[in-house]
């Protein structure tokens, strides 16, 4: 070990040195402070090696480890890895005088923009203080008049068929058994939880492999996102939902056929109405091969799909994909939850989609402008309730399944979403949390200290595939058990009985119009 190696921050791994320009304001302030108990610090330099943000460096002359607090993003990697637990990251009082109107978010963004003239980017999902309707809904339970069910002693059905259902099944059809001709292609998920679209490029291949393996283990599905299907994942093709986004990265007939279902991505909850952007320096050989673009070129998805300017155009694309897969796979359309979402959803179903994915404004992203992430879109609860109600009213609810996405935090959210009308849910951020994410919102920088949203070779190694597999599968297993318990206490023995069953929900602390929008009754009634 050459000690000089650690002397200068920014030198490690030959990173580009971003020295603040003279006159830059933002670098003068820091959000977090890394507090180090120097008595306990044994100078093992683990924190120095683990920090990808050049926040920590070792001064061998003084034999002390120092921090550049302005670089700290509170990812907790050093705190967790320190063998003597001598590091603590704190919110620093290095802020302005308390101000209810101008908080850190506002002035830091202004400083950054005045320094650079750019758009403030961020990762993850909307973190503003909007009302969470999930937290204001409560579930029913069986008491004297009807018995609850013990899921440990009685069978509990979580299997979910996702896709278009027939209009009517007559007793003659049922008598024919498997020979019913008019059944549409469906995908079978053993649990109503599917991994959300996260592309290879936005996340590391190790994490995507882990998701794929966990999906296979638990009998559910993962989604490739818009980044194509890596050749290593071909063996999981029966558990892959492949996405066709506006960039059309890696899309061809083979890609569409190597799947369980195909998904057309119109919008993303974190950034409705804008496309993705994977900078050229992140497009490594593997990513270039999977996305079918030149190595090192920017992977920019346009904001709209340039062949979809109307519902009729969407129908053309849906049927083009159905033709390509010979009508053997359901086609899903993913939209962000926005105003008038129910009318949009109705149009999508009539255009021929078998599945609608609604992505709420809490949905995560690999990179999005902060202003868009925080201020565009509507809550998934309201969108889901309205879409379900509209499709039922129009009598076309059977023509498409609804998948809810965007900020699903636990099994209670899943049960509530299903009671509001979802067939299944997408979980993305929860899966990332399962493998160590600390919600530091730096996904867009591609230097994830936990090896999740990065493709830098040394950082990817921090998340081994089997660890990701085990932890994601454990999460799904835990949630499955909790969902079964919750179904049991409601006196239901099948997830189908809960689907759209809003009688099982009551609102607490919601106004009359909110209750009406969600289609639920006030608690106590």
């Amino acid at each position, binding site marked *: 070990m050459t000690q000089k190696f650690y002397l200068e921050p920014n030198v490690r791994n030959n990173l580009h040195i971003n020295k603040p320009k003279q006159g830059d304001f933002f670098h003068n302030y820091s959000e977090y402070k890394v507090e180090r108990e120097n008595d306990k610090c*044994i100078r093992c*330099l683990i924190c120095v090696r683990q920090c990808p943000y050049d926040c920590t460096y070792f001064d061998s002359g003084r034999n002390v480890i120092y921090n550049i607090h302005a670089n700290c993003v509170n990812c907790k990697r050093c705190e967790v890895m320190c*063998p003597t637990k001598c590091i603590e990251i704190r919110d620093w009082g290095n802020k302005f005088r308390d101000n209810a109107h101008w908080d850190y978010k506002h002035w830091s963004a202004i400083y950054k923009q005045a320094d650079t003239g750019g758009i403030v980017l961020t990762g993850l999902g909307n973190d503003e203080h909007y009302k969470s309707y999930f937290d204001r809904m409560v579930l029913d339970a069986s008491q004297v008049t009807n018995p609850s069910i013990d899921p440990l002693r009685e069978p509990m059905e979580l299997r979910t068929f996702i896709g278009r259902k027939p209009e009517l099944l007559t007793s003659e059809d049922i008598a024919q058994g498997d020979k019913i001709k008019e059944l549409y292609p469906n995908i079978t998920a053993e649990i109503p939880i599917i991994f959300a679209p996260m592309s290879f490029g936005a996340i590391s291949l190790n994490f995507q492999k882990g998701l794929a393996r966990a999906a296979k283990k638990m009998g559910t599905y993962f989604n490739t996102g818009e980044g194509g299907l890596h050749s290593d994942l071909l063996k999981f093709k029966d558990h892959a939902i492949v996405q066709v986004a506006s960039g059309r990265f890696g899309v061809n007939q083979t890609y569409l056929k190597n799947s369980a279902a195909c998904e057309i991505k119109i919008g993303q909850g974190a950034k409705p109405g804008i496309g993705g952007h994977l900078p050229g320096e992140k497009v490594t050989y593997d990513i270039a091969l999977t996305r079918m673009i030149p190595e090192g070129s920017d992977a920019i998805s346009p904001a709209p799909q340039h062949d979809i300017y109307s519902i009729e155009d969407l129908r053309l694309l849906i049927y083009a994909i159905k033709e390509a897969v010979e009508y053997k796979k359901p086609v899903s359309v993913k939209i962000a939850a926005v105003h008038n979402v129910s009318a949009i959803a109705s149009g999508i179903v009539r255009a021929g989609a078998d599945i609608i994915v609604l992505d709420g404004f809490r949905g995560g992203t690999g990179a999005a402008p902060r202003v868009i992430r925080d201020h565009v879109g509507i809550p998934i609860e309201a969108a889901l309730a309205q879409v379900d109600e509209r499709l039922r009213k129009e009598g076309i609810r059977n023509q498409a399944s609804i998948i809810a996405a965007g900020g699903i935090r636990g099994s209670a959210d899943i049960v509530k979403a299903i009671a509001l009308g979802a067939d299944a849910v997408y979980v993305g951020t929860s899966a990332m949390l399962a493998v160590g994410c600390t919600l530091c919102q730096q996904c867009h920088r591609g230097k994830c200290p936990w*090896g999740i949203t990065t493709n830098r070779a*040394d950082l990817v190694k921090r998340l081994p595939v089997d*660890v990701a597999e085990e932890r994601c599968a454990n999460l799904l297993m835990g949630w499955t058990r909790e969902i079964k318990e919750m179904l049991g206490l409601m006196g239901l023995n099948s997830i189908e009985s809960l689907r759209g069953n809003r009688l099982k929900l009551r609102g607490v602390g919601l106004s009359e119009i909110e209750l009406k929008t969600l289609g639920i009754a006030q608690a106590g009634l």
Partner: protein
Amino acid sequence: MKIVYPVEERCIDCHLCEVACIVEHSESKNPVDAYFSEGLSFNSIRSSYTHEPNQAMADKRPMPLNRCLVEFGNSVSLSTNCRHCENASCVLACKNGSLYYDHEGRVLLNEKKCVGCWMCLMACEYGAISRNANMKNVPSLENNGIQHHCDLCPEREEPACVMVCPTNALAFEDR
């Protein structure tokens, strides 16, 4: 015989195995004490701020050094240590029998015998042997030190480095 094998594709260059090794071979088994209060070491040889020799530490047992070493560079990293060969070159080269095989086949060192001639260090094909300059048996030779290599943690069932590795990048198995 079980020895420690590195798994390159999992090693994340955190060097926790080195810390665990030092702590395991210290008296107190406590990281802070192992690094600071158990005798002379780079950390305790002088106080951080005054730059003066720390007399209080001078008489104590020398701080143990790490017996595994993480090699790293360009995103490749792995923890290396003694292979405990069957016909070990170091044992053949040792002139006074301070290196020996124990009943399980481990290559171990009799710390009291080693004179620091470094023939083992020359003979080892793997570069797994290093000098422990904190200890010496020949008073006339300053900073000569004694031989130093992985002893597979005789007090534990599984070596400390294998236990501590956060990504299971070390496998303790019989191949």
